[in-house]
């Protein structure tokens, strides 16, 4: 009796584990690292190459300055400068996203295989990313650069995932053809 109950419970546990794995590790085709590197070389991603985004939204300096009444004005200036920098960075990220999307379209236009479902998912991801960037931009305008530090810092990941999508498509053509793709891309962008 006990072993039957145990088998029932353990079997349910195992089934739950398989469902969990199926849902959590949903298969996303991962691009080759060389393709990711190649996309980075072909496209100049100004926003995502900015390494100090974390520091940009860190309010420690601002808090330190605010704690001293004599430095309040300096604190406000720092806040204003950070706000401008954050907005510029967000604009660059937005440009990066659009450039990656154009690059992906360029690859598919040149005959790299893709499916309609994949394209729709890409457009969906792009629209959501742009909306999120707009939301962050509005929040920075209204509440300052330190209001949503975590969300803002993670904005760079939007470009990373878009970049992986482009690398995945690029990876579908032989490495030997990448140089030609780069030349065509540069000439089409000029």
């Amino acid at each position, binding site marked *: 009796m006990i072993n039957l109950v145990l088998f029932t419970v353990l079997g349910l546990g195992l089934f739950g584990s398989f469902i969990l794995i199926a849902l959590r590790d949903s298969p996303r085709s*991962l691009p080759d690292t060389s393709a990711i590197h190649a996309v980075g070389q072909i496209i100049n991603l100004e926003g995502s190459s900015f390494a100090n985004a974390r520091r940009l939204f860190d309010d420690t300096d601002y808090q330190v300055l605010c704690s001293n009444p004599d430095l309040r004005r300096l604190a406000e200036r720092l806040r204003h400068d950070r706000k401008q920098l954050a907005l510029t960075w967000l604009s660059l990220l937005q440009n990066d996203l659009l450039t990656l999307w154009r690059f992906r379209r360029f690859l598919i236009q040149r005959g790299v295989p893709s499916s309609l479902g994949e394209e729709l998912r890409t457009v969906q991801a792009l629209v959501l990313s742009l909306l999120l960037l707009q939301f962050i931009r509005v929040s920075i305008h209204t509440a300052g650069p330190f209001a949503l530090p975590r969300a803002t810092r993670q904005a760079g990941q939007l470009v990373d995932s878009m970049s992986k999508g482009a690398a995945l498509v690029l990876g579908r053509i032989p490495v030997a053809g990448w140089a030609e793709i780069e030349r065509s891309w540069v000439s089409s962008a000029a």
Partner: protein
Amino acid sequence: MVMSLVIWIAALTLATGTLVLFLRRALWRTYPFLLAYVIWLIIGNSALLIGFRFFNSVYTSLYWHSDTVDVVLRFLVVWEVFHQTFPKGSGLNRSLSKGLGIAAFLLLVFACATFWGYQNYTNLRSIHMALDRSFDFVQAVMILGTLLMARYYGVLFGRNVRGIALAFGGWVSISTVNSAMVDLTNSFLPYWYYLRPLSFLVMMVAWIWALWVYEPNPPILESGATELNQWTEDWNRTVSAARTIIRP
């Protein structure tokens, strides 16, 4: 009666569909053990269908005997998943195969021990239920273990093996619960008649989906001997430095 017949025909059609996929996409070269199991499914299900329709007197015995063969042959699927995830000759296979072999042996001993329990022999059905639940459970644990080990070591799955492993794991887990519940309460018997074959159909559909596109596991990238030697040297240096700091 009609429902059982429909399930049987659907199972046979799906198994044949899987076989056609194997042949058309030349998947049999990559997944030979899985192919062997699919062929068995076609043969076994055809025999059962014929028995069900024309030889009712031998049907029950035929069902349980084919179920026993099926329990054993399911290890082909487990082996295929393991063998595809940790291919022979890979560093991970060399490092893990001995330990995992012992774990698999212990699991088999566990399955045999639970099957051998005398309380299972009250009637014919319980023997097969015990066989089913013991080995289903062990097979589910083996598949889950392989998936978790692969995840731990960052081994990537292709659509084919992932779909096969998850669908098979889900099915044998349901089967474990199913065969335990039937022995636990007889009122579950009507559900058992449909739950197991229906979950089998779901597994077959998932297999067809997984094999529709040829996407094997990406190869495991391994470092060269020079790189590994360098890494070992660096590691040993770090360990000795740490020891010096701890015990100056």
